[in-house]
C-alpha cells in the first residue's frame, strides 16, 4: 500500500510563492517543510519566461525568469526545505493529508498545516469559446514558452497575439526570439494608452500592430492556422488578420482544483480560495498564497505573498489562530475582482499593505470609496490610474474605520 510521509508544513506548488513560503517557514524555525512540485523542476512559470524583468520587487534585481527561478530554488533548498519535484498532489485523503503521485509510487503526505500555492493558468482558446477550425499553431503563452524555451521547438513565422496584459508582451518577446514576427496584438480594450503595459513595447524594439477595441471571432485554417477573424466592437465590422500562429494570452484563472475538491470556499470574483489578509482560507490549517488567490500578479509579488503567508502559518502552528473569519470585502461592477475577500482585523495587513484589484475599464483619476452598511468609511483619490490588464492596488489604510461585525465592506470606483 501507499507509503506515508509526515511533515510539519506541506506546500503544494513550487513556484515563486510556494518556494518563498517554504524558505520563510524554515528560516523562522519550522522543522520539516516539504514542497510538492508536479513539474520536473521547481521554479514555476518564470522557468520558461526566458527574458529580463524578474526579481524587481522581492530581490531588488532585474534578472531573467530562469535565473530568478533557479535562485528561488537554491535559496529554498539552502534554507533546509525538502522539494519533491515530479510529484503531483492529486487529491485529499482527509483535511490534513493528500495523495501524491510520482515515479516513486503513490504516497500520502500528512501535515499540520497546508499551503496551497498552485498558481494560475491562462484560459485556452476553447474556454474563451472562440469558434472555427482546430488547426495546429494555436497556443497559450504557457505552451508557447514551454515549447520555445524548454523544448526548443519551432513555432510559425507570423503570429497574432490575443490579449493585452503584461503576459502578452512576454509572449511577444518569446515569439521574437523564436523567429516568429509578433505581427498584431488584439485586445478588446479601447486605446493603447489605456494600460501602461504597452509602454514596454518601446523598450523592446518592436511594436506589433495594436488592434484595440476588437475581439477575435474565429480561428481560420485547415491544418495550420491561416488567420484570425476579428471584429471591431464599435462598428461590428470584421476582417481577417493573416498569420500562421495565434497565442491566447492572459485571461487567467487560478488552478483551484485542489481547493474546490476540498470543499474550501471560493471567492466568486477571483475564483481562488476566499482568504483574509494573512492568507488564511476558511478551512483551519489550510493557507493560500500567490496567483491561486487571485489571477494574476507578477512573480515577484507572488513571492512576497508567499513570504507573507508564512507568518500566519507560524501563528497557527503556535496555536494562536484558527481559520479566517471576518467580513467580506466586495468590489462594485468596476472591479473584476478584489482581494483579499475577507477582512479579519486579527489577520493584520496583507503583503505590501495593499488591497489588490483588477478593473474592467481604464479610470485615469480613480476615486475610491469604501462603504460598510450605510456608512461611508473612506473617500480617496489615488495618484495612479486604474488600468485594466494588470493589478490595481489600493492602500490598505482606506479600510481604517471599518467595524469588525459591521457587515460587508464595499469598494466603489469612480
Amino acid at each position, binding site marked *: 500500500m*501507499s507509503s506515508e510521509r509526515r511533515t510539519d508544513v506541506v506546500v503544494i506548488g513550487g513556484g515563486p510563492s510556494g518556494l518563498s513560503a517554504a524558505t520563510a517557514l524554515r528560516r523562522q524555525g519550522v522543522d520539516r517543510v516539504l514542497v510538492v512540485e508536479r513539474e520536473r523542476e521547481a521554479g514555476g512559470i518564470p522557468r520558461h519566461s526566458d527574458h529580463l524583468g524578474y526579481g524587481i520587487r522581492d530581490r531588488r534585481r532585474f534578472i531573467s525568469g530562469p535565473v530568478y527561478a533557479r535562485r528561488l530554488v537554491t535559496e529554498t533548498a539552502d534554507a533546509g526545505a525538502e522539494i519533491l519535484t515530479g510529484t503531483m498532489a492529486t487529491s485529499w485523503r482527509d483535511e490534513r493529508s493528500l495523495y501524491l503521485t510520482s515515479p*516513486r509510487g503513490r504516497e500520502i503526505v500528512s501535515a499540520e498545516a497546508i499551503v496551497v500555492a498552485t498558481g494560475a493558468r491562462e484560459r485556452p482558446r476553447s474556454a474563451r469559446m472562440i469558434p472555427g477550425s482546430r488547426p495546429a499553431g494555436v497556443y497559450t503563452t*504557457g505552451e508557447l514558452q514551454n515549447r520555445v524555451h524548454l523544448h526548443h521547438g519551432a513555432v510559425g513565422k507570423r503570429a497574432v497575439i490575443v490579449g493585452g496584459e503584461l503576459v502578452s508582451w512576454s509572449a511577444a518577446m518569446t515569439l521574437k526570439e523564436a523567429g516568429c514576427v509578433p505581427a498584431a496584438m488584439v485586445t478588446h480594450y479601447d486605446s493603447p494608452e489605456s494600460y501602461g503595459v504597452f509602454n514596454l513595447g518601446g523598450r523592446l524594439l518592436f511594436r506589433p500592430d495594436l488592434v484595440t477595441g476588437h475581439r477575435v471571432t474565429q480561428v481560420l485554417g485547415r491544418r495550420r492556422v491561416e488567420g484570425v477573424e476579428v471584429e471591431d466592437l464599435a462598428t461590428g465590422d470584421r476582417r481577417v488578420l493573416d498569420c500562421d500562429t495565434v497565442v491566447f494570452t492572459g485571461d487567467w484563472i487560478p488552478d483551484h482544483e485542489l481547493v474546490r475538491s476540498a470543499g474550501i470556499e471560493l471567492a466568486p470574483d477571483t475564483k481562488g480560495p476566499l482568504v483574509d489578509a494573512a492568507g488564511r482560507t476558511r478551512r483551519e490549517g489550510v493557507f493560500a498564497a500567490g496567483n491561486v488567490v487571485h489571477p494574476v500578479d507578477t512573480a515577484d509579488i507572488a513571492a512576497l505573498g508567499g513570504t507573507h503567508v508564512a507568518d500566519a502559518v507560524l501563528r497557527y502552528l503556535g496555536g494562536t489562530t484558527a481559520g479566517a473569519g471576518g467580513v467580506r470585502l466586495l468590489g462594485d461592477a468596476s472591479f473584476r475582482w478584489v482581494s483579499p475577500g475577507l477582512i479579519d482585523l486579527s489577520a493584520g495587513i496583507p503583503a505590501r499593505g495593499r488591497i489588490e484589484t483588477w478593473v474592467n475599464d481604464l479610470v485615469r483619476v480613480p476615486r475610491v470609496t469604501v462603504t460598510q452598511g450605510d456608512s461611508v468609511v473612506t473617500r480617496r483619490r489615488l495618484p495612479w490610474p486604474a488600468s485594466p490588464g494588470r493589478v490595481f492596488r489600493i492602500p490598505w489604510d482606506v479600510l481604517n474605520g471599518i467595524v469588525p461585525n459591521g457587515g460587508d465592506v464595499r469598494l466603489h470606483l469612480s
Partner: protein
Amino acid sequence: MSERSERSMRSIDGVYDVTIVGAGVVGTAIARALSRYELDIAVVDAAHDVGEGTSKANTAILHTGFDAKPGTLESRLVSRGYTLLGEYAERTGIPMERTGALLVAWTDEELANLPSLREKAEQNGYDACEIIDADAVYATLPHLGPGALGGLTVPGETIICPWTPSIAYATEAVDNGAALLLGREVTGVTVGDDATVVHTSRGDITARWLINAAGLGADVLDCALGFDRFTVTPRRGELLVFDKLARPLVDKIVLPVPSKLGKGVLVSPTVYGNVMLGPTAEDLHDKTATGTSENGFAFLHEKGERLMPTLFEEEVTTAYAGLRAAIDHGDYLIEPDPEQRYLLVGGIRSTGLTASMAIAEYVEGLLSDAGVELRRRSSLADPPQMPNIGEARPRPYERDEVIRRDPAYGELVCFCERVSFGEVRDALCATVPAVDRSGVSRRTRATNGRCQGFYCGAAVDATIEEMVR
C-alpha cells in the same frame, strides 16, 4: 507496425480476400469480426489513424435503442450491438459507465408524448422505461433548470468512450493478421471477373470482396461501383465539454424528447469525468467542415442555460464539431451485390458506435450467404486489454503497484488529465499506434484537459517527435 503486418499477412498471390474501405468504428468492427476466419483482410483509409472521421466526434453513448424506429434494421442492430459492445467493453476495458438516462419533457406536448415513447421502447424490445413526475425528475437531477414537467427513465443508456472501440477492434484484427493500410486515399475502383482493384494514393490493393464502410464518403464509392441509391449529407454536430469540476451537476444522461431533426441537445457526463452539452444538428455540403461556429455556440449556450443554469458558471474545457453521415434513407443501408462481390454498409448514423459489432455480425451473415467461406482460425488472438482512460476504474497514476513496476506510470506529463509518460509511450508503441498529438489524446487523454496544453502540450509533442522518429 502496419508495414510488418502488410508484408507478413498478404496472401501468396497478392490478393486479399476482403478489402474494407473505411477504418472508422464500423470498418474496424467488420475487420475484427472477419479476421477471426481464415480470410486475408485489408482495411484501407485515407486517414493516418483509425476512427479519424465521423467516429471520433460521437456523443459517446451506448444506446439501448429505445427510441429507434421499430422494425428497422437499425433498431435490430442497435439493440443487438448494445449487448455485444457492452460485453466486449467489459472484456477489453473500453471505458464505460452504466449511468442511465432521463428523458425530460418541458412542454405539455412533450409530456403527452412520453407514453408513446415508452410504447415505442417496448416495440424495440426495451421494457425498462418508466414515466416519472416532475418531483422525481428534480430528485434525480437537482441542478436541472426550472420548468420540467415529467420524464421517462431509460436505465440502460450507458456512457462509453467513443475512441477506444475503433482502436480495440483494429488491434484485435491486426493481432489476427489483418493488414491496416492507413494514409491511403481511395482514388478509384476497378471491378474484374475474380477480383476488385482498389486504387489508392499509395498503390493498388486487390481483393476478391470489397466492403464499403467509408462513412461520409460511402456514397461516392458506391457510385464508383455503378450505383446511384443514396446521398450522404454531412450533418455537423457541435459539442461543448465542460470542466471536470462540473461533473457533480449531472450523473445521468439528460435527453430531450426527440424531434424530427434528430435526438436534440443532451447533457451528459463523460467517462473521462467531464460534462458534455450538444450536439447541434446542421446539414452542410462540405464533408471536411469540422470547425465550430458562432451560431452553434450561441445555440448551445441558450439551450444549456435552460437545461442546467449553473453549467455555464463552470469553465468550458473544449469544444469540437463532428460530422454524422446523414443519408436520404430512413434506415441503415447494408446490401450485398454478389455479382460484383461488393457489400455496402452505408447510412450508419450516430447510432453506429452502439451498433458496430452487430453490423459486423450481420455482415458476416451476408457474406456467408453470398458464398464466402467462413472457417474459424485455429488459433485466435485474445481480445486486447485496452489502457484505461476512464474514471470508473483506477487510472495508472492511482495505482502504486503499477508505478512501482514501471515508474514511467508515475511520471505525469499531463496534469489536468493525470496522464503519465508511460501511457503516452504505450500509445506510441501500441499495435495500432498513435502517430500524432490527436492520436495520443484519444488513447491517453493527454492535452484534453482544462489547460489544453498550457503545461503539457510542448512536452507531449516533444515525446511524440522523439518516439515517432
